[in-house]
Structure formats: structure tokens, C-alpha cells
């Protein structure tokens, strides 16, 4: 699949928290992760997966991160891994056909494992055994999803056992939203107007990254556009987003017009 994303990156541990390299300020201050994710969503571009993974490692109590596009339990495209361990754990699951990524994708929910040694062997026998041979002791896999749309997973790995605190889980979920938002439409080659040449949306209006994903009107409009264009839900949401970008409007504004039947996305005129 040629969608312009480079090979999985491999960073040595020493580089993992090199904040300056990915343009990060002090990531320990409150709200720093949200702000950075907002910037990444606005900037878009092919280095977004790398930047999102780096932001998670810097701001959350996790040591490694990876982003993978998925179009089926056995069809995936690794986009970025923060280091070799993350990349190998990621690839292992897909070669085994079992593990938290597959479970999160198929089950459409996060898979949160605060202590790998406590995982029952009936859950992912081969993956758990292999994972225990790495330094990783806890893992948190967040699906990149909105309802029926699931485009991949964000994997966060931690070398010490322990659950994410509520605000950390909030940060992880928002990182997954930001990844969803940034990667949406990539697989379908839907043009995200302006993104490639750096003219994304001009501001995020103080919104949390991807927060517009979570509005009833956006979900409903996605369903209506799907029916109008006779496309998948993912393409419909991409089209909604592209229209908002092209007309310099918020996605919610466009979605409300669609639901109120003031705007249509027909086959001829996407």
C-alpha cells in the first residue's frame, strides 16, 4: 500500500525522550499533551505518526509506542514504532494472529493490561509468552475508531507494571483520537485538501484534538453521507472532514448542515 508513510522508525532508547527533536516543550506540565496533539492534527503530514508516538512516550508513563493501520484482523500496515521492542511486539501479534492489537481491533474497545504476568494464558498464549521475554510489563492498546469505523491501533508499552491513572488514560484516548483524525482517509487516498502542502485547518479553536469526532451530529452526518455517496463510513467521514477543511469551517458546522439537509454529498459532487 503506497500512502507515503516511511518505514517503521527505529529510535534508540537514548533518543526516545529527545523532546527537542519532535518540537516538544516541557511535557510534564498539565495540558501539554493536549496542546501538542492539537498542533500535530493541525499540521498533519507524513511525520504525524512519529510525532504522536513521541508525544505519548514523553507525556505518559509509557516507554514505547507504535501506530499501526489495520483493515482487518490479519491486514495491517505498521506506520511507526518508537523502538525495536515496540516494532517487534507489534509485528509478532500480526504474525501470530493474536494479541491485544487484534483484540482491540476486532472487539472495538481499548485493551488495557496493567500487568502482563497476570494475564491468563488462555487470552493470548503465544503472544503473552513472547512478550514476557521483553522488558515490557504493561500494555495499553487503543483502537483508532469512531463507531463502525476502525482504522488501526495505538499501542503503548510500559516496562513497569501499573494501570494508567484516569488523566493518563484520558491522554492516551486523546492521542488515539488525534491519530484517527490525522490518518483518516489515508488508506482510501481521499484528498485531505491542503494538508500535503501544509495548509491544514488554520486553527483548532481551542478544541481538544479530535473532539469533534465525538458529536452526535458528526456520527449522524457520516451515516447520511455514506448513503448519499454510496461509500464506506470511513470514506464518508473523510469526505466530511475534507469539505470542512476546504471551506475553512469546523467539522461540526458542516455536519449540522448535512443533518439539517442543507448540504448534500452526492456521487457526482463529493
Amino acid at each position, binding site marked *: 500500500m503506497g500512502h507515503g508513510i516511511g518505514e517503521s522508525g527505529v529510535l534508540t532508547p537514548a533518543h526516545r525522550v529527545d523532546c527537542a527533536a519532535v518540537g516538544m516543550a516541557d511535557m510534564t506540565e498539565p495540558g501539554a499533551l493536549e496542546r501538542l496533539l492539537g498542533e500535530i492534527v493541525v499540521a498533519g503530514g507524513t511525520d504525524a505518526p512519529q510525532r504522536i508516538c513521541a508525544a505519548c512516550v514523553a507525556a505518559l508513563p509509557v516507554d514505547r509506542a507504535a501506530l499501526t493501520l489495520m483493515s482487518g484482523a490479519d491486514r495491517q500496515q505498521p506506520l511507526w514504532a518508537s523502538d525495536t521492542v515496540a516494532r517487534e511486539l507489534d509485528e509478532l501479534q500480526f504474525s501470530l494472529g493474536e494479541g491485544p492489537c487484534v483484540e482491540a481491533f476486532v*472487539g*472495538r*474497545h*481499548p*485493551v*488495557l*493490561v*496493567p500487568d502482563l504476568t497476570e494475564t491468563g494464558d488462555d487470552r493470548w498464549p503465544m503472544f503473552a509468552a513472547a512478550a514476557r521475554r521483553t522488558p515490557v510489563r504493561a500494555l495499553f492498546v487503543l483502537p483508532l*475508531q*469512531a*463507531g*463502525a469505523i476502525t482504522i488501526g491501533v495505538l499501542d503503548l508499552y510500559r516496562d513497569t507494571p501499573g*494501570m494508567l491513572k*484516569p488523566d493518563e*488514560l*484520558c491522554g492516551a*484516548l*486523546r492521542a488515539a*483520537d488525534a491519530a484517527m483524525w490525522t490518518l483518516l482517509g489515508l488508506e482510501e487516498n481521499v484528498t485531505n485538501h491542503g494538508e500535503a502542502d501544509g495548509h491544514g485547518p488554520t486553527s483548532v479553536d481551542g478544541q*481538544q484534538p479530535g*473532539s469533534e469526532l*465525538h*458529536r*452526535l451530529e458528526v*456520527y*449522524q*452526518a*457520516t*451515516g*447520511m*453521507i*455514506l*448513503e*448519499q455517496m454510496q461509500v*464506506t*463510513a470511513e470514506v464518508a467521514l473523510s469526505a466530511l472532514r475534507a469539505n470542512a477543511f476546504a471551506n475553512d469551517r469546523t467539522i461540526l458546522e458542516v455536519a449540522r448542515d448535512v*443533518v439539517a439537509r442543507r448540504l448534500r454529498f452526492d456521487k457526482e459532487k463529493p
Partner: protein
Amino acid sequence: MSAEQVNRDQALAKAFVTLADTLVADYDVIDVLHQLTLECVALLRVDAAGLLLSDQRGTLQITAASTERARVVELFQLQSDEGPCLDCFRTSRPIAAPDLRERSDWPRFSAHTLASGYRSVHALPMRLRSETIGALNLFRVEPGALEPEELQIAQALADVATIGILQERSIRRREVVAEQLQVALNSRVIIEQAKGVLAERGQLDMDRAFQLIRGYARSTNQLLSVVALSIVDGTTTAEALVRPLDGSTPP
């Protein structure tokens, strides 16, 4: 005991028996929550009921409502910013606003709610031990507080909803609570997407679209979320759902 009291006790017993029956079988979480909001309206002196869940990103999301009418749903949705539900969720305590005209703490919420024809609002927390996952929100057209007995029933219904979402009351692990909460929230999103598909295909309003999906799920003995997903991915065609409806409607 008055006849009215006897009637309500019977209705109450029936409601809980039905819910208990549902929760031991393979059930759809959104369907159960929707049923609970309908029971609130049937059993209590309230005119609309909604369940809001924390999305774990700092926002409350409407997950079930006794009516899908856009104007009412918006009242629930408004409370991601301010309102009794948000206060109830944050404090884990019930909030009663018997007359919104006499409350000044939620100016935006109160203005919209009064404009929509509701005077009184109650909110009850959905708790599992130390964790609060959301709130049950009750609207009344008439001003006035609910009686203690009614609030007890409402809280019991909210507790059933909590158990329904988390699948079991024995859950002790926070990560399982978090996973189940996201399942419920995402199921709701799929239903919204399916409503959009049907609304477009049949030129229906969202309330009608929801009724159609729910009716189809019941008549074909499928889970609501399974039907919704099959509508969005195209394996259940919108025509299959809309056509019988058209046929049953006189011209």
C-alpha cells in the same frame, strides 16, 4: 394502599423482573439502557430521561434517551459544559433542581431547558464502588421535586444501568471498567451512524430512524448493535428496513 399505589408497585415489579431477565441473557447494552430510560418515564412522574456516560476524555456523552427527538437529545448533550448532570457526575451525589426558574448556577442549560418546555431536573449518579461512570438525568414539564420513594426507584434503575454496562457487579479492576465503558460509548456511535444512513435513505427524522432499527432488531431477534453495524457496513440494506415501513404506512 391506594389503587394508584398498587398499580405502580405492580408496574415496578414487572419492570425489574424484565430487566433481570434481560441481564442474564445475551443482551445489547444500548437496548437495555434505552429500556431503562423508558421505564423511568413510565414509573416516575418524569417526562424525559437520559443516561450520560463519561467518555474518559473529560466529557459526558448521551448514551440512551427515552426519546431521540433532536431538541431533547440536545438538552442532554448540552450538559457536557454545564448542568445538573455534570455536577452530579463530578460530586457523585444526586442533584435536584425542582424549579429551574429559581436556579442561577447553570444559565445556559436552564435557558435552553426552559425554552424546551421543562421546568424541573433531577440527576442521579451511576456508581460502582468508588468510581462514578455517568449519571441518570430526569426532566419534568411541571415544577416540583420528586418524592424520596421516586428517587429511590430512580437510583435503583441507575444502578441496574451501571451493572448492565459493566456486565457484572463484581468487577474490581479499573481497567475492565474502562474497557466496558468504551464498548458502550462506541455502540452508541454505531447506532448514530446507522440512524444517519436510514434517515437519508428513507428521508426520516432521527427519532423515526432509531425506532426502525430497534423494531427491526426485535422482529428479527438480533442485538441492536449488530443490526446497526450491518446497516453501516451495508450488509443489511437500508431498503430492507425502510420498505416494510413504507408498506405499512397508508398513503
